[in-house]
């Protein structure tokens, strides 16, 4: 639940940021989802790298 609440916060920030910069509503929703994907995906991959690196060396 703790992680989920952070993910929800990330979604809110991405969506509202997109709504403020895109003039079309549909574009804004898509842009928000893409941003959210990059953010969560980036954090997820970074976390895995940090977790795996000590195992490699």
């Amino acid at each position, binding site marked *: *639940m*703790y992680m989920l*609440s*952070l993910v*929800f*916060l990330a979604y*809110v*920030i991405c*969506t*509202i*940021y997109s*709504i*403020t*910069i*895109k*003039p*079309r*509503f549909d*574009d*804004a929703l898509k842009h928000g989802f893409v941003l959210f994907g990059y953010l969560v995906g980036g954090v997820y991959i970074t976390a895995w790298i940090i977790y795996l690196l000590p195992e490699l060396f």
Partner: protein
Amino acid sequence: MKKSEPIIENLGNTDILKEFVFPLAIGFLIPGGGHLFIKDKKRGMLIFILLFITFFSAVLMNGKIYTPSLNDGTSWDKMVSILASAAEIGNGLYYFGSIIFVDVAGDLPSIYYEVGSVYGITAGLLNFLVLFSLFDLIRRKKGMLPESLDTSDNKEIEAAK
């Protein structure tokens, strides 16, 4: 020295109170309300729902609702309380209502205390962003946005019309 441009173009006989001050005031007091007032329903509803959930999650998670406190704590504590309160004021009526009806200190032992506090501050800051965007939206709708200040892609705006 270059002469500064006005932030609102072609003002004419526009009623500033009705066209600008009302929507911005409503948007400040109820996040998303300003967009609903200028009949941008989809945006308004989405902003309203997201910021409502965000702020009331903060309250339900027993996060700290910051109020400016100048009497106790170190100077660092005082600075943080002032900055965080300034951010939370963006929640408008939700913030003032929660100061009256909710225990603002939060529940420190709860594991959601930190996240709850961050939720409250983020919701307030996001509403400030929404207000700036609302001001731009009103100016653009009425053709009052000076070209030099229009940062978005003009083709997209033409398509949106």
